[in-house]
């Protein structure tokens, strides 16, 4: 299970950090852990862990292996493994994940589908 300790371990070895004063436009694809605290427009994809901070604003489709989301997202989210949505999150788009936790206070406007660890499942339309 993906708990707080695991989450902190995952971000100890990040490949990319998008800080709070940074805006990224385009298709942002990484192979390692990604931490986003700023603004992203386009698409975000990684084979590993994605952490989206409380103050970040994402207008993009998102794909990752595992993710923790605390910011605002306009776009669809596709997570292969575990998705943790914290109380500060505002999501406007469809969600697909194998495991999911949603903290009280989070705002979600979109469909939510649970799949058995396979991102190729096309249940979201």
């Amino acid at each position, binding site marked *: 299970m993906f708990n707080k300790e695991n989450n902190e371990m995952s*971000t*100890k*070895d*990040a*490949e*990319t*950090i*998008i*800080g*709070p*004063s*940074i*805006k*990224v*436009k*385009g*298709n*942002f*694809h*990484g192979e*390692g*852990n990604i*931490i986003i*605290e*700023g603004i992203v427009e*386009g698409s975000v994809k990684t084979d590993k862990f994605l952490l989206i901070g409380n103050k970040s604003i994402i207008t993009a489709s998102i794909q990752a292996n595992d993710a923790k989301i605390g910011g605002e997202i306009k776009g669809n989210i596709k997570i292969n493994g575990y998705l943790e949505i914290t109380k500060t999150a505002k999501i406007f788009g469809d969600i697909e994940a194998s495991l999911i936790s949603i903290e009280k206070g989070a705002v979600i406007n979109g469909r939510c589908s649970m799949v058995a660890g396979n991102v190729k499942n096309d249940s979201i339309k």
Partner: protein
Amino acid sequence: MHVYIYDSYVNDRKNQSIISKIETRITDLGLGGKIIRIGMFNSIYNAIENEINKGAKTIIAVGNNNIFNQVINSVAKFLTSTPKKNIPIGFIPVGKQNNEKAQFTGIPFNEEACDILSARRIDLLDLGKINNQYFLFEAKIPTKGTTIEIDKNFSIEIDKSGDIYIVNLPTINMPKEINSSAHDDCLELLININKSSFLLKDSGGQSVFNFKKLKIINNSFPITVDSSLKLPTPVEIEIAKEKINLIVGKNRKF
């Protein structure tokens, strides 16, 4: 044979005492060789190419960040046509002015650097390439007016003041989550946003990106390479195919 490339400023009278001590120490350690004094009309590249072809075993820069960078560039350019002759590079920093890079390679100032040459601890290090120039440490440019395009996939906009670094061998504080070194075959883009002294809530912040090829444009400011060379933009930056063998000290910070 060891070949010593002297920067022009080391011939100044105020440096004569330091140079005498260096040359005495070199003789004592049995590291004597040929001295080439660089002036306005000398080509460092031609001199180094000539000496390597004659059988030089080590090329040693004697001076500051500037000559160190030029020797690295010359050896790396030589490697593009003759990759098997990867001659080790040594460095003797003369004086402390404009010589802050030496400490990161574990090389002390003046005659004490000769002991590092004698120990001959060699490390194979990556190089960055900015247009046709090589760099060992980093390139730096202010965020103001700078546009960054990475791998032609995405661009970065920065609306606050700070500095942008393209890092090969880090001499600045990197975020604790990032493992950056000159042994990983990649460069990092680091953006440091200045902390505001008036707004305590504005904590600045650091951003780091991994990339294969990056383009930087700034119409107002040049990009500074290894604290020694300023290049006008636009520039394209990537990891170089060439690597250098650098003689490093045991107190190196990598």
